[in-house]
């Protein structure tokens, strides 16, 4: 009995091998169809996971999306800087949300008198003098543009110059484009900032274009601003750029609020709300496209396989004629389909993952990280599709050997 079984099994595999090898051209065609299906499946699944993540990091370009402000900020009335935060809060803000880095800046605002300064003491030209908003900043992150989205209009070539004359405090600063135009100053020139009877000379290191109110402001290091505005260890607001999808930003905000009950932590509604909407739309769109493509690719592969399966009538007729039970004959074909699906899936999915890495590079400039889970999932999917596409073979069960051999269709 066991001998018969092993014999049967050997025979089974032999027939499967023969079925596969019978027609190289056809084998190639089926593998191509299945492989293409698997490749698209794998590429899309991988991209789907990755693209959503990338998308949320694209939202960084909108700048700060969470603000930490003093609790009672409306009592400040019309006096600038009347209510401030303790600077030490800045260090207590967590620097990451999940795996992603949070950019943060501690800002102190104040109004100062700005005069172009040419090093000549008090004799300098006061015609260009104007009042402007001074922003003291202390920053943690990769790029200041994460907080103040901007483009640099002018930047010194080479090393930053930090010349210090005896007795004059010199700081370096960045100017908004509008203010620079109004003052008629260029980079590497100096300006004098005056407030509360004290003054500081600063050297223009960069001119930025913000396209917002910042275009008429001066950015300077926080400690210099604190000294000038006589606001030691104080800041007006802490601006954060929290990456992540809308729910994770929300979670971060409520967590931060519970850590710092004395201040207001609030999302910048304009951006958090817009981002949430856009994110949902785009991820819905991606999911829908991916689902449709997967479904229809599966159907396409199925149709291609079915076409091929139909020509097996003769084989089935013969097998039945020499005494093959319908179930065993069907098992043969299902096994063939499964093997094809597996092979197509293994190659196709690998190709698909490579494809998605390339696609990710094209779209987001960063190669998509291959997710290992995608590979087995798409191989399994392809195999299932291949087996499912053997479903029409059920009709072969009703093939009557005699009519096949008579050549009836």
């Amino acid at each position, binding site marked *: 009995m066991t001998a018969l079984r092993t014999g049967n099994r050997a025979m089974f595999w032999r027939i499967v091998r023969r079925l596969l090898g019978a027609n190289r051209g056809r084998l190639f065609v089926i593998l191509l169809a299945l492989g293409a299906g698997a490749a698209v499946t794998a590429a899309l699944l991988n991209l789907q996971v990755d693209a959503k993540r990338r998308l949320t990091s694209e939202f960084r370009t909108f700048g700060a999306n969470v603000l930490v402000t003093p609790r009672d900020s409306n009592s400040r009335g019309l006096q600038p800087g009347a209510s401030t935060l303790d600077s030490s809060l800045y260090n207590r803000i967590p620097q990451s949300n999940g795996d992603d880095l949070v950019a943060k800046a501690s800002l102190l605002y104040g109004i100062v008198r700005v005069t172009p300064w040419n090093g000549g003491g008090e004799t300098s030209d006061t015609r260009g003098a104007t009042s402007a908003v001074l922003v003291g900043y202390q920053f943690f992150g990769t790029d200041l543009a994460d907080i103040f989205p901007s483009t640099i209009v002018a930047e010194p070539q080479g090393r930053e110059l930090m010349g210090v004359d005896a007795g004059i405090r010199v700081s370096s600063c960045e100017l908004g484009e509008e203010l620079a135009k109004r003052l008629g100053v260029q980079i590497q020139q100096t300006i004098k900032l005056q407030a509360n009877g004290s003054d500081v000379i600063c050297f223009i290191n960069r001119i930025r274009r913000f*396209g917002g109110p910042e275009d008429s402001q001066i950015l300077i290091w926080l400690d210099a601003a604190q000294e000038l505005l006589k606001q030691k260890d104080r800041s007006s607001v802490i601006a954060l750029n929290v990456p992540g999808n809308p729910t994770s930003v929300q979670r971060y905000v409520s967590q931060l609020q519970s850590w710092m009950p004395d201040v207001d932590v609030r999302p910048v*509604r304009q951006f958090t709300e817009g981002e949430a909407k*856009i994110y949902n739309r785009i991820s819905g769109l991606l999911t829908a496209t991916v689902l449709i493509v997967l479904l229809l690719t599966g159907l396409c592969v199925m149709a291609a396989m079915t076409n091929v399966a139909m020509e097996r009538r003769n084989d089935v007729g013969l097998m039945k004629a020499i005494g093959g039970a319908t179930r065993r004959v069907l098992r043969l074909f299902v096994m063939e389909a499964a093997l094809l699906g597996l092979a197509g899936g293994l190659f196709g999915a690998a190709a698909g993952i490579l494809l998605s890495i390339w696609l990710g590079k094209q779209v987001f400039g960063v190669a998509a990280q291959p997710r290992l889970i995608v590979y087995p999932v798409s191989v399994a999917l392809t195999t299932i599709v291949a087996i499912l596409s053997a479903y029409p073979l059920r009709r072969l069960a009703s093939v009557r050997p005699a009519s096949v051999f008579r050549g009836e269709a």
Partner: protein
Amino acid sequence: MFLRLVADSFTRRPRRKVLTAAALALGMAVVTAALSVSLDVGDRLASEFRSLGANLVVTPQADSLPLEIGGVDYRPVNAGAYLPEADLPEIKTVFWHNNIIGFAPILETPITVGNPASVPEISSYIPTHDLQFLGTWAHHAVRTPDGSNFYTGIASTNPWWHVTGRWFDDGERECVVGTRLAKSLGVSAGSYLMIFHKDGVGVESSDGLSIVGIVETGGPEDDKIIGPLGIAQSLADKPEQYRTLYVSALTKPEDDFARRDPKTMKADEFERWSCSPYVSSIAYSIGQVLTGTDVRVIRRVAEGEGTILTRVRTLLWMVTLAALLAAALAVGASSAASVIERRTEIGLMKALGAGSGTVGFLLATEQLLLAFVGGGIGYSLGIILARLVGQRIFGVAPAPSLLVLVAVLALAAGVTLLGSAIPLRRASLYEPAPILRGE
């Protein structure tokens, strides 16, 4: 005879043809759906991005530098320049007027406010707070030059402002109050507020404003009173004037060409530039109709929008391409299979004296017929699919496009022909005898 052969091939084995056509139709349905959605998605997303609010800001050219901290401008009211409200309908005359989906003029002025609450006598009212009054349009009818009304206001430029209650009516003595201010004043919708200009320059009569809603903005406006522009103008004594205008426009993401300075362009380049809805060219055309203004792009909004739009569009095109590729391969494979299985037939035809060219031509005709039928059915299927997707995600179905139909048919024809070309080439090398012998 030729046509008879073709017809015969279709009628004798209909099931097999149906299968091939079904594969084709499904493949082409994917392509159609993907193409329609991709073609449409740019516009849809662009309008979705308008939920970020205005992307252009218009200020007087002669204005002094704003001294704005935390949403409050610390300039004295009489410093700086203002713009005439009467010019505003001109915005709807620019070339890209259909892309301008909303604009709102703003005039802010410092006020003092009191809450008469239950006290009916105005004389017993004591001013309590120093505040900002933000005058704007809520839902204002702008008479466009072509005679129709265009409704716009802060509700369309700042869609993230949520009002509990309702927005004020532009012609009425009504206002909405920021949520934090409402809490600290202890007022709610239905109460009355007395407002006075802080320095007493205004000629505002003192019969108060009724609060019709509480607005939540998540920004500094939560501490302000927002009301009709007309009231702000009379408070500040600046009749028919405003200070800042926010414009929300549908734009095309900027590319390198868009970032060039229009002054350095040649005439034809300038033509092309101003005929693309780049945010910078819309800004330029608004600057042309509103004289004495400085139109600036709010980079924070415009830039982020541009990058994300471009990325998503590229992403979708890539997905479409991948879908196209897969569909083409599957369809090609199935048409290849349909030729392979007809080796005997080909052998017989050749044995009877048909040349390779004739056989190829016959098979190609059959495949093309299939391609057109399958492609046509696939197109209609795909359109239905695209509608479903569009409706579900954006609430708007993409319009069926003839371009897509042509593309789909061409692709179907190309793919089936290519798919059959390889087996056909092999078929033309067949020796009839071994095939007929069944080897």
